[in-house]
């Protein structure tokens, strides 16, 4: 029997999440590697158009759970729906985009299915018929290769950028309804609404130059050296999450998956290790300069220019060199 690979697509108001397309591509590749079929799953309400869009991919089927009870995401209903569908169809692998929504319920789904859970996968390969999943550990400083043991479905979430949405193979897939009893499923959460977290005053997305500071600064009192560099470059100050969490800078200066996404022509990262949640917010910058005392910090893998050293020496030296070059 050929193995089924399911890809659970996240959508909002019928619009498919970009990372869900990446997961479709991963599913197509996995299907080819293990000799299986890739099938998509869509949960929500009013999904006709979204389903037909997904149906234009090379997939064996698009399974749709379309019901008013699924109009908004709730962990209770999403878990119960997927649990029932997975138990009935027995896919070997179920792929998800590693979004905040997925992580919110994925552990719970694994628990209710008693299924293997492999979150935040960045690559996979098939070795002797078993799939080896690669995922970052220790803030991206290392990677682990893991594999599932025993039988039963394997639940996998795919980190942003691991597979390319542009490479999804086109085709034509039949659309099938999942037909479950959604009314009986408890939501487990009463959604009241959505609000802005930061009260965003500062829009960093338009800044041509950003000087970004990380926990490596060590001490809030040292912030002036970063401000001086920013002034010398005519730049805005940005920061990694711990700097914001510690109250050294206001929340609207945070860059990353839970902050702003920026694409300046120059991004200087000082004392930032380069965890994936930071990288997704700045890796589109034109030129990236990293200053870090640890030569093996992952930030150097996305940087164009790197200086290994103590930022308390290097940053003021760069400020001085800029002033000298501009003849001040």
């Amino acid at each position: 029997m050929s193995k089924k690979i399911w890809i659970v697509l996240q959508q909002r108001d019928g619009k498919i999440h970009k990372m869900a397309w990446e997961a479709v591509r991963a599913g197509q590749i996995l299907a080819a590697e293990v000799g299986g079929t890739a099938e998509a799953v869509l949960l929500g309400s009013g999904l006709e158009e979204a389903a037909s869009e997904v149906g234009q991919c090379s997939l064996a089927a698009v399974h749709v759970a379309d019901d008013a009870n699924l109009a908004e995401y709730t962990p209770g209903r999403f878990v119960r729906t997927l649990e029932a569908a997975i138990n009935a169809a027995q896919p070997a692998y179920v792929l998800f985009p590693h979004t905040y929504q997925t992580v919110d319920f994925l552990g719970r789904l694994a628990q209710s299915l008693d299924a293997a859970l492999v979150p935040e996968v960045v690559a996979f390969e098939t070795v002797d018929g078993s799939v080896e999943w690669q995922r970052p550990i220790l803030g991206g400083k290392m990677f682990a290769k893991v594999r599932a043991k025993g039988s039963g479905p394997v639940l996998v979430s795919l980190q942003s950028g691991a597979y390319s949405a542009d490479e999804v193979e086109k085709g034509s897939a039949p659309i099938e309804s999942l037909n479950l009893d959604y009314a009986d499923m408890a939501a487990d959460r009463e959604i009241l609404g959505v609000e802005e977290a930061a009260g965003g005053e500062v829009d960093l997305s338009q800044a041509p130059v950003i000087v970004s500071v990380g926990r490596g600064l060590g001490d809030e009192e040292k912030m002036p050296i970063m401000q001086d560099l920013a002034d010398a470059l005519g730049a805005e100050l940005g920061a990694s999450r711990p700097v914001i969490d510690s109250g050294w800078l206001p929340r609207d200066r945070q860059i990353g998956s839970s902050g702003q996404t920026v694409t300046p022509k120059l991004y200087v990262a000082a004392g930032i290790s380069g965890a994936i949640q930071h990288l997704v917010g700045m890796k589109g910058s034109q030129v990236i300069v990293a200053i870090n005392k640890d030569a093996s910090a992952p930030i150097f893998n996305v940087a164009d220019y790197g200086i290994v050293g103590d930022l308390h020496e290097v940053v003021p030296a760069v400020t001085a060199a800029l002033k000298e070059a501009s003849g001040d």
Partner: protein
Amino acid sequence: MRIAVCIKQVPDTEARLRLSGDGTWIDEEDLSFVINESDTYALEEALQIAERTDGEVVVFSLGPERVREALRKALALGAVRAVHLQDPAFLGGDGLTVGRALAGAIAAEGFDLVLTGSQSDDVGFGSIGSIIAGELGWPHAWLVMGVVLDEANHKVKVAREMEGGMNEISNLDLPAVLEVQAGLNKPRYASLKGIMQAKKKEISEPGPGDLGLAPEGLGESGAKIEVISVAFPETGKGAQMIEGDAETAAKTLVEKLQKEARIL
């Protein structure tokens, strides 16, 4: 309110990492460990809620002997008691077995609320809290950035972080599991008095039998995934590294930004 807080002990982010002998983890010898970052915020939130509601906080951690130090620290910060799951049967598992063991220990006592961190800084499944919630049959929320208790109606209003600076606001019925995101509050420092008092507080070490848990579902035997190997990422494809002392490197950098990258 009685609140359980799950804390994990993880390598300090500044620690120099080396591979372990068998290549499936890091060498823990001479490594310095700390309480996982988001867990410090979970603990602080729990202590504040306990203070407001005349309640108490009990901390739970699964891990080897060294974890005792993290539990002591939590006791010094104000937790009344600690539970350390260090029986070998608990160790060497995956997210599911860790969640199952912690849920078993939590269920053995009565709690109104369980707080965890949102993600561990070492293996980072981001899932133990929701696995615990599943085991207990309680509602949960991941990436909690706001907590407002409504004790009279047995509800808690939470703000859950979404991508790109938005929060989802929702009500959960109590008891519930909240997976706290870093930045929720301002964690306190331990006082000298707290540190002294912690020495007298109890750290219990129940085994699977004490919690009514079958050993087959725990640790290595219960795990559904296994680690084949861990490794450092390939280097070399990345940055052009600029050498020299700070001053020389800074000058070279500015020159390169002007003449090579042409962005200054």
